[in-house]
């Protein structure tokens, strides 16, 4: 798969991933902006409001009918927190013209025009968003905020993040805060939107079977033409600040039948290269069925069904997750802490290292085999201002030694232990 980047205007990039492997073309627009308390709720509202209608497709019904007509093109929106950025994501996935039952149709161009229209040309009345749409979407955002409690495992993770990043952008909830909603009106929000689209980082992705004319087609689109050049307002991940921390233990109660244990770890790396080492560290600690967490917490102690860890490289943190019998809290915590200690002492084998490398390298090799994974990979590079080919990525993993991993293990500190019980 060839990945090409073209800067259409300063701060606006068009990425193509040209490949014949898929039945579909995937077109995506990502708007990235610095996460902050003032705008977090507004951004969440905007991501929901834009789905409601554009100047050419005035209602959600019209948009939906159009997508259905295009052989079920799927239009989706997402809202992500990536490092200290809030990212508004918009996608349309549509089948490639080659697989349409009636030939001579060109749905790709319609797809591109539709999504650009939805994101950059919203439905406006009296210099503001439509009041009715705004009120309905406030209701939806409110539900998303309240709905945080519905998945207890995810809720526990969110709470652990909040505890670790009190008064910092990363501690904010991506859907914002209920108390902000009353203060937002349709005119001010539209004004804010106009500022946002002319200051945020814009990445446009197209993955699929493409020809040379598509780039021009996008550049000449009216909605693209009217966007201004910008010094994009986004945050490149920084190396973690080293500060003395005291282990913070938080226990909360809810109506649960299983206890949810989340442990947030800081990884105090000294340079970007160590992110690859941390990836390996995490794989051995809790990244697979061969990991210390899975083997010791689940298979040996039979304390859990889920026992794993995941690495958030943008913030250089790791979360350990486990669902346990509430009365087993102390026991589970002891076993988990023992794994962290064992990693520090280098109590893991060359075989464990080799196995982890194989797993990570296999995952890197499949990036090209999944359209959305390909886009996510290259977008991650955009946001971290790096450019590592898949081959180099694999080499970096292959070269990691046991010393490198032990080095990381000794830079790991428990920040927060969060436990949700009944």
């Amino acid at each position, binding site marked *: 798969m060839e990945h090409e980047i073209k800067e259409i205007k300063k701060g606006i990039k068009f990425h193509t991933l040209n490949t014949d492997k898929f039945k579909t073309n995937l077109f995506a627009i990502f708007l990235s902006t610095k996460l902050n308390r003032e705008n977090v709720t507004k951004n969440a509202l905007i991501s929901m409001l834009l789905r409601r209608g554009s100047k050419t497709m005035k209602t959600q019904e019209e948009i939906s009918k159009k*997508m259905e007509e295009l052989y079920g093109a799927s239009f989706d929106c997402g809202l992500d927190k990536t490092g200290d950025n809030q990212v508004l994501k918009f996608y349309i*996935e549509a089948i490639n013209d080659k697989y349409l039952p009636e030939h001579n149709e060109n749905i790709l161009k319609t797809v591109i025009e539709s999504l650009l229209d939805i994101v950059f040309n919203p439905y406006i009345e009296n210099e503001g968003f439509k009041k009715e749409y705004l009120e309905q979407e406030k209701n939806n955002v409110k539900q998303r905020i309240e*709905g945080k409690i519905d998945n207890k495992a995810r809720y526990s993770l969110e709470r652990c993040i909040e505890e670790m990043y009190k008064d910092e952008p990363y501690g904010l909830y991506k859907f914002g805060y209920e108390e902000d909603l009353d203060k937002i009106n349709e005119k001010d929000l539209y004004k804010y939107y106009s500022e946002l689209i002319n200051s945020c980082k814009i990445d446009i992705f197209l993955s699929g079977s493409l020809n040379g004319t598509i780039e021009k087609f996008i550049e000449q689109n009216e909605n693209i033409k009217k966007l201004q050049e910008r010094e994009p307002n986004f945050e490149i991940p920084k190396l973690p600040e080293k500060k003395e921390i005291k282990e913070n233990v938080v226990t909360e109660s809810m109506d649960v039948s299983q206890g949810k244990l989340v442990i947030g770890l800081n990884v105090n790396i000294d340079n970007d290269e160590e992110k690859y080492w941390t990836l390996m560290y995490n794989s051995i600690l809790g990244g697979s069925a061969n990991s210390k967490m899975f083997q010791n917490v689940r298979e040996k102690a039979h304390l859990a069904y889920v026992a794993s860890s995941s690495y958030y490289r943008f913030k250089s943190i790791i979360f350990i997750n486990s*669902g346990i019998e509430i009365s087993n809290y102390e026991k589970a915590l002891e076993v988990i802490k023992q794994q962290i200690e064992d990693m520090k002492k280098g109590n893991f084998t060359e075989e464990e290292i080799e196995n982890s490398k194989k797993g990570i390298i*296999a995952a890197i090799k499949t990036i090209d085999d999944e359209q959305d994974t390909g886009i996510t990979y290259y977008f991650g590079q955009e946001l971290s201002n790096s450019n590592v080919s898949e081959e180099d990525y694999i080499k970096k993993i292959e070269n990691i030694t046991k010393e490198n991993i032990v080095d990381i293990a000794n830079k790991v500190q428990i920040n927060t232990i969060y436990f949700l019980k009944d």
Partner: protein
Amino acid sequence: MQIIENLKVKEKLYIEKLANGLTVMIIPKPGMKKKYMIWGTNYGSNDNKFIVPGEQEVTEVPNGVAHFLEHKLFEQEDGTNSLDTLTALGVNANAYTTNDHTAYLFECTDNFYEAMDELMDYVQHPYFTDENVEKEKGIIGQEIRMYDDYPDWRVYLNTLEAMYHENPIKIDITGTIETISKIDKDILYKCYNTFYHPSNMAMVISGDFKPEELLEEVKKRLVENKPCGEIKRIYPDEPEEIVKPEIVQKLEVSNPIYTIGIKDIRNEKSQNKSEIVKKQLSMEILLNLIFGRSSKLYQALYKDGIIYGEPSLDYEFGKNYAHVLITGMSSNPREVYRAFKERVEELKNNGINKDDFERLKKMIYGSYVKEYNDVQDIARMFLSDYFKGIYSFDYLEEIEGINVEYLNQVLKDVFKEDKMVLSIVENE
């Protein structure tokens, strides 16, 4: 091998039934680095009562055995665990149990044949001991507790509870902490020996392969098996009526979660392959027509702030059950239910609009084409359809033949008010 080609998605299925009864299906994907192998048995949580081939009396086992077996099959006699061995090869291995089948699988880029060695070895060589069975009860116990905390899972199971009197579809796949406590190694061996015979199994592989060569590799790894007679599965008679119209559970959730269930009847006609496929496709079109993103009902309820986001729309069926499930979150589930029934009646009276039908038919066609992007989606789809007596390509072929009259008939046959139930999970 027999080759079935589909010109719409430009894919080929290579299929062969081996002498020992095993069906092997291969869907080549040239140029893909990912390879996917899945091996399944036509045995799931529904199969709790049966007659072992060659025996006279009925065997009845505790709920949750099929799933328990899935967990334990990874155990090897030399003390190793096949999940660890596969993971060490850098492949992504897993297994799952549904109500009608159990499957073992892996996805990889390298070491395919090494992984195949391991997969085919552990599925064909069970090793259960009192000790390894006991230890699993703690792990599965936590899996059960995890599901207890998922409101979406609770609202689903409760819907089945309200629809079915006897049918084992309503049983939780994992069983309960109480039922799994009764499982021992003898029960596991008995179920293994009954249901893990090649003639009751199917294998699907997708990736960049030469099918004939790959088939030889599969054959090499099969152990000798005596032919086996027919397994007689005993399913209780299920009345056509529902159990109760409404079921409510209290859980800590932000807003009520609801499922509207409609119990459908399986009859002679519903065993015909072409009819099964047409029915499924028609149900997908109908459900989108009634409650999809562009529907009048969805638009109205969304505008009034009664629903948040679109509900999921499903039609599930198996050998002896079929039902509709519409699930979402709402500030007022009873109002959603009322409006839904009203809209159904309106459609029955006025008939289906031709434009809506043509548009949604296109949409459903596209959704089936999209399934052919990824080796995992392809392999899983062919396996699960196979156990339902279908080749997945059939969907792409049969959709042409569906017309408005057919759809109007299905609407009348399935969407009957006395077959509907409402399940709600809400706060105290």
